[in-house]
């Protein structure tokens, strides 16, 4: 089962396991602080912003154009930013580390 590590803004580390759905949904299931997913995962609210560990960025891939447009206006955006509602839980992302921006 794919494992994903979330690191919250306060430095807490949460290892989550799931088989399907989006990474945002997985984070909510594990009550990861700072991942609200207000819009339910349609890329409208940017409340599921994470920084992907640089070494894992090839696993998640880069943001799509619509997602990148949303991130562009987030004050905490970096090169490795993603909205995790747009990342599917699958073997492809097994082992990635995602940090919730402060």
């Amino acid at each position, binding site marked *: 089962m794919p494992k994903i590590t979330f690191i919250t803004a306060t430095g807490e580390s949460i290892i989550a396991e799931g088989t399907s759905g989006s990474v945002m949904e997985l984070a909510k299931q594990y009550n990861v602080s700072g991942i609200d997913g207000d819009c*339910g*995962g*349609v890329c*409208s*609210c940017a409340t599921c912003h994470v920084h992907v560990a640089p070494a894992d960025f090839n696993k998640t891939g880069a943001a799509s154009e*619509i997602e990148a447009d949303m991130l562009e*206006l987030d004050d905490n955006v970096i090169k490795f930013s993603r909205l995790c509602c747009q990342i599917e839980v699958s073997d492809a992302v097994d082992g990635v580390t995602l940090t919730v921006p402060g």
Partner: protein
Amino acid sequence: MKVSKLPDPFKSAREDKGYGEMDDQNDPVTMLLRLKDVRKSAHKYQTFTSEAKPGRIVVPSEVAIRDVRQIPFEVDPPMHRDYRTLVEDWFRRPNAPDYQAKLSVLVEEVVALALSADKIEVINEFSLRLQSRALTLLLNVPLEISKTWIDWGTHVFRSEGEALDGNKAAILYDYIDKEIDKAIANPGEDMYSVLLASEINGRKLTKEEVKGVMILTFAGGRDTVINALTNTIAYFSDHPESLIRLRREPEIIDKTVEELIRYFSPLTHMGRVVTEDTVVCEHAVKADTRVSLCWASANRDAAVFERPNEVILDRKMNPHVGFGFSHHNCLGATHARQILKTLIRTLTEKVSSIEILESEDNIEELGHFKRKVGFHKLVAVFS
């Protein structure tokens, strides 16, 4: 034309030049119509401020009827962040299971009433009733208080044939003053008391600040929620197949709520005051004039949304701005989403069809744009 259809009056202006113009009580407004421009301008508070004279960023302007600053709505960062942090947890309570259970009971009661009547006028007998009753949960006050709010009618600020009604606004402001005084005398667990006990930057919120938050809570969530509920009923009347699909696939209800909010855009636009001479869409706008962020137009922008004029229940990429965008995105969105989710779920469980007998459109006039935002009257039979 189907009764639930909300045409997009902005298409040609949005595609040709990207902005529109309208007058409003001799304080003209340049309307920004494209999604990207709307989002960027919403984000750039330094140039497009919300912290103007109270009431001026609202279109139609409320300058003539209001002196109290709505909080956090009419405050820019960084102070905005402090206010927002103070109230955010309270406005996220609709995510809690016990809040949702109470809301379900309220929604089921209103739907049961509609089913038991021969016919109902949806705005007054369904949407206003549900909006007011649900607001008691958000404020954490007894349900019977909603009777007073229902008696106020559908508009807090507006009345028939008159954009702004100072007398109606006074009813709300006087009411809030009295409720704040009651909470000072007898503090409880209601929103007034919680705000009065709150501290910002090491001091208690003032009575004026509490009033500013309460006015925003009442006014911001009234017409908008009523329009969203009424339009939802009209939509399912026209689209019984959607109700059937949602009954079979309840897992898509979250996406449906976002799509209906995009399509309905219950708040057409919101203004900002320009702080420095600047340019939008190659059009010069002067300092101390107004622009508006036209959510309704941005939400039909074909540069972003495929088939923008269709309701696609499970639309996957839906970066709509129906709840605004950036710092000032809708504080009541969690509550509003939860009402709509609960309503849709309840309709799929309890209602087989909705028939519209009579309708009268509510059309806003915005310069030469005419936008249907909902209804003045909608008579329906639930079965």
